[in-house]
């Protein structure tokens, strides 16, 4: 299996820097149900990776392993050269304390299918919660940056609204602003448009495309093939808990080599 995709980062001359995310042989079972059967994946700095695959293929589970919302059974994941959840000390692998795990998650943003905004806080409070409370940014500075981000996602006039007063698309754009507010090294998107009415999908994808163009490192699980085609540096096709095929969108989406990929694309396009 090829590890390195043809990303912007790897196409650049003399870039031999280690990938930002390096997953090796990741296994995960829920009881007897083996959901991940050895995932290998590298994501370079600034790369936009879109993960496609049929329902139940383990895409969400893999994404959640990266920021330790799920505990994997076997293998390892490194983010920015640091192993997630464990520490190798004198040749012995030790599980990290909950506090250390929390520290590792601080620069990994996550956008959920169900938005998961904090309903008891206004939009602005949602966005500044982590910067002020976890990263120790002074309030004035955090709020100024939050307003900048709300402008970026097109919602500055909603700063003092509560999440339930917003449409689904607006909520998801706030969730994206909230994830950006922590100045993440990496953002994980788990089907960010699946809970939206069809006419609201566009505005969220538009926002995400903007982020992709700015060189943010993103791993996106989605069923939006159009987004994969336009915004992805690399498309990864998962099925049955393994990576079946990966490569540039124009290759994987147009000329898939694996029959399973072909069958999947025939169904969704």
């Amino acid at each position, binding site marked *: 299996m090829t590890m390195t995709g043809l990303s912007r980062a790897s196409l650049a001359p003399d870039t031999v820097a280690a990938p930002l995310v390096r997953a090796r042989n990741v296994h995960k079972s829920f009881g007897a149900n083996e959901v991940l059967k050895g995932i290998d994946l590298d994501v370079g700095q600034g790369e936009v990776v879109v993960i496609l695959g049929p329902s139940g293929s383990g895409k969400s589970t893999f994404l959640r392993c990266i920021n330790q919302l799920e505990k994997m059974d076997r293998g390892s994941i490194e983010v920015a050269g640091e192993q997630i959840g464990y520490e190798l000390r004198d040749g012995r692998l030790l599980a990290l304390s909950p506090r250390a795990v929390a520290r590792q*998650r601080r620069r*990994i943003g996550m956008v959920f299918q169900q938005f*998961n905004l904090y309903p008891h806080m206004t939009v602005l409070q949602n966005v500044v919660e982590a910067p002020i409370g976890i990263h120790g940014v002074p309030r004035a500075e955090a709020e100024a940056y939050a307003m900048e981000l709300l402008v970026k996602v097109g919602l500055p006039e909603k700063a003092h609204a509560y999440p339930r007063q917003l449409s689904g698309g607006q909520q998801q754009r706030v969730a994206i602003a909230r994830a950006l507010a922590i100045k993440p090294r990496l953002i994980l998107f788990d089907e960010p448009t699946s809970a939206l009415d069809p006419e609201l999908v566009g505005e969220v994808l538009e926002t995400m495309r903007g982020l992709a163009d700015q060189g943010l490192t993103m791993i996106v699980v989605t069923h939006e093939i159009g987004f994969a085609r336009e915004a992805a540096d690399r498309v990864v096709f998962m099925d049955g808990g393994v990576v079946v095929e990966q490569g540039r969108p124009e290759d994987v989406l147009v000329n898939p080599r694996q029959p399973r990929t072909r069958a999947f694309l025939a169904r969704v396009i």
Partner: protein
Amino acid sequence: MSAAVQPVLADARDVSRAHRPFPIGRIALWAIVVGVFAQAFWAIAHNKNFEWHVVAQWFTADSILRGLGVTLGLTVVSMVIGTAIGLLLAMGRLSEDPLLRSLSALYIWFFRGTPLLVQLLFWYNMSTLFPTISIGIPFGPTFASWPTNDVITPLTAAIAGLSLNEAAYMAEIIRGGLLSVDRGQYETADAFGMTRWRALRRIIIPQAMRSIVPPSGNQLISMIKATSLVSVIAMGDLLYSAQAVYNRTFEVIPLLMVAVLWYLLVTSILNVGQSAIERYYARGERGAASRTPAPTVAGETL
């Protein structure tokens, strides 16, 4: 159908012009209710046996106000301690550690399963069970030791009894509240790298409060009345003070009325407070938009 008829028809059917039927049934009911209440009020106000002048005379007497102070103080202190212990018990019940889970369950089982009056008597008579109280390592050396009678006064027995009992009830209320919060909220807090405690304080508890406040209001009101039980261990609460007076003057009914009126007054104030707190924690809810200070979105439809 001609085009000219339709607007007329539509106007005639405009619901804003509708007449309501005369609510004869409701007015009759109101008349009966008002009549019954007026009669009852008249009977109570003019019944010599209530001795309203005695009630007025004692209502703000020093001893009664001191008793009221004790009742309120006991309620507040026991409620605060009870809620704090209740939160720990609720977290214990929801913990992944089976030892913590069963210890919390055992505590709740015991304190909910025995009468508060009996618990108070046990605390008050603790010295007959354990003559001294010590701090030290179990089965090892002790660092400090006091005679139980010095530690357990009527006040400490009352606080211990009321708050430990309250904790068992608050634990279940808080546990229900924590469970009512969407799992996605816990995950989001985790994903942003919040510590357990921070997630609880900033994200989970404020949302859990919506289902914690109403039953807690009930608890607080029960607690105010439960404090009257401490009169059995010689604590000078409101009821005890009223009893102390009528034991001398034999004006039993008027002094009980003094106590009743004070209990009613305090619980009424609490009801108002509870409504305010419920409104506060309902902010951000659907339909709460017009009541919350959210300037840019007032009137936006959902």
